């Protein structure tokens, strides 16, 4: 009978993404309730050492799919790999991140395993032995609770930053090698190249702190003051659709419905009015600060803290105040 929890430990270029450790943390909490082992599946090329490391973070078993075919991510290759590992491990629950990779991968795995999947979950719990997933729907205007009652594994893709990362301890994991039995012809879509942007910055979807600029920023070069604030508090800089459509910021910076969904601890919105389509991308932020000179801007309805004033006056002072605070 299916038992335990398996997590997909996402890695790129031989490094785990933060979501892998977040899944180990929530995976541990869930397995304490449903019983069975906490296992991880790692897919890549030359990642055996990396896979072994997960023992320190609570994984009791690590299923490893390693080979040339898996050097880069591919929907078909990785889905075959994860499905093969899941068939071998037979977990009651299978978790992936709701990252770009996880969102591409999880439905394909779900179809291979003929089970059900809840995507982009912000909360997971166990009731009567079943996984209950909570997730925002309708642009974040309400939530829905779902379960997968009759098939296993019960699958969920978890939004990055919804859970803290598992801390390193002293455990070790048993390594189980898995061969999904596919050849090069099985991959009809292949990554030719990965183009990197803005090296060194944490991606918005994984960021703990975000400073965003909206229409009120008025020009691309004015993002400089947001960058300065972001550097002081270790934030990633985002933008509203209005700022992107006006050419002040690039598309990869857009937070909101037609951009990225973010889930930071702190979101500082500067010159952003707070249109529904923006809120859809950031309303699960734990603390929201709004800076806008229009006191009627809807963003103030959602903000924990607000300052009604000109962002060009506020932001430089805020940068200085944070500098002082962090130097204490």
């Amino acid at each position: 009978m299916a038992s335990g929890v398996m997590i997909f430990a996402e890695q790129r270029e031989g490094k785990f993404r933060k979501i892998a450790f977040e899944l180990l943390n929530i995976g541990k909490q869930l397995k304490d309730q449903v019983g069975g082992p906490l296992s991880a599946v790692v897919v890549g090329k030359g990642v055996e050492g990396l896979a072994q490391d997960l023992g320190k973070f609570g994984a009791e078993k690590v299923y490893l799919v390693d080979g040339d075919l898996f050097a880069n991510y591919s929907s078909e290759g990785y889905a075959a790999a994860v499905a093969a590992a899941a068939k071998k491990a037979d977990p009651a629950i299978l978790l992936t991140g709701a990252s770009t990779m996880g969102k591409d991968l999880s439905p394909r795995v779900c179809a291979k395993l003929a089970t059900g999947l809840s995507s982009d979950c912000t909360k997971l719990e166990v009731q009567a032995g079943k996984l209950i997933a909570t997730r925002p729907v309708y642009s974040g205007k309400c939530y829905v609770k779902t379960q997968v009652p009759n098939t296993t594994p019960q699958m969920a893709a978890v939004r990055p930053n919804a859970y803290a990362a598992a801390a390193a301890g002293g455990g070790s994991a048993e390594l189980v090698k898995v061969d999904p039995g596919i050849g090069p012809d099985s991959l009809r879509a292949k990554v030719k190249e990965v183009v990197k942007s803005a090296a060194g910055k944490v991606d918005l979807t994984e960021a703990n702190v975000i400073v965003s600029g909206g229409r009120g920023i008025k020009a691309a070069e004015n993002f400089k003051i947001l960058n300065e604030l972001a550097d002081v508090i270790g934030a990633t800089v985002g933008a509203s659709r209005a700022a992107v459509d006006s050419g002040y910021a690039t598309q990869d910076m857009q937070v909101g419905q037609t951009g990225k969904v973010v889930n930071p601890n702190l979101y500082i919105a500067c010159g952003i009015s707070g249109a529904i389509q923006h809120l859809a991308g950031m309303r699960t932020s734990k603390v929201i600060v709004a800076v806008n000179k229009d006191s009627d801007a809807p963003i103030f309805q959602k903000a924990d803290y607000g300052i009604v004033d000109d962002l060009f006056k506020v932001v430089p002072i805020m940068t200085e105040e944070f500098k002082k605070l962090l130097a204490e």
Partner: protein
Amino acid sequence: MKIVVCLKQTPDTEATIKLTADKQGIEEQNIKWVMNPYDEYAVEQALRLKEKHGGETVVVCMGPDRVTEAMRTALAMGMDKGVHLKDDAFAHSDATGTAKALAAAIKPLSPDLILCGRQAIDWDMAQVPAILAELLDMPQVTVVAKMEMGADGKSAVCNRRIEGGEEVVEVKFPAVLTCDKGLNEPRYASLPGIMKAKKKEIKPLGLAESGLSANDVGKASSKVQILEYLPLPERPPGKVFKEQETPDMVKQVVKLLREEAKII
């Protein structure tokens, strides 16, 4: 080439969402329905590919009668014809049931390319396209922001946004691609387009004609079960400072972030 676009009709972004009394769904009266905004990129891409390479474009959509409005919009933009999966048996399908129904409608068309929006803005799952690809045994490229047709006309090179950059993916047809903002700028339907769309064929396809059984689709087949909808938790009113000296307001907020929110 033959291109199928899968369409969904969703509530408008600005629509007010009210839960039903039993918390099993949303009140559908008074909702303004639109074509899922991401699907506009899929329709536009299909039209551009047809303009350049020739062929036929078909829009496929599942849902009650109201969804034909979104289908007409796609036809008015220039799509050639539509297939409407229309049967009470399809209602309340989960992503797998929906993908099965779409696959049943699409398979006889033998398309070179299936285009979908990146996700539907109602449930934001992004599941149906990938499940559809698996069911039809096709490769997929999701969240495509740029697409170049291969010289052979049977493949494409796509850029998809990932964390911290882009993946450049080469894909062989037939394939499922999901379209993101930035791929193109969707056109508006022209008045002649709207007139022409009225005469274009929308073929209804029921459960029996689709070749599926009642076990494949609908609520009973759903592997994902909805327990309940929940309203947003009440957020306590925030502390908003105004009409004070800027440095004073900033100092108070920074202090609150450290001492009350304990976040910095």
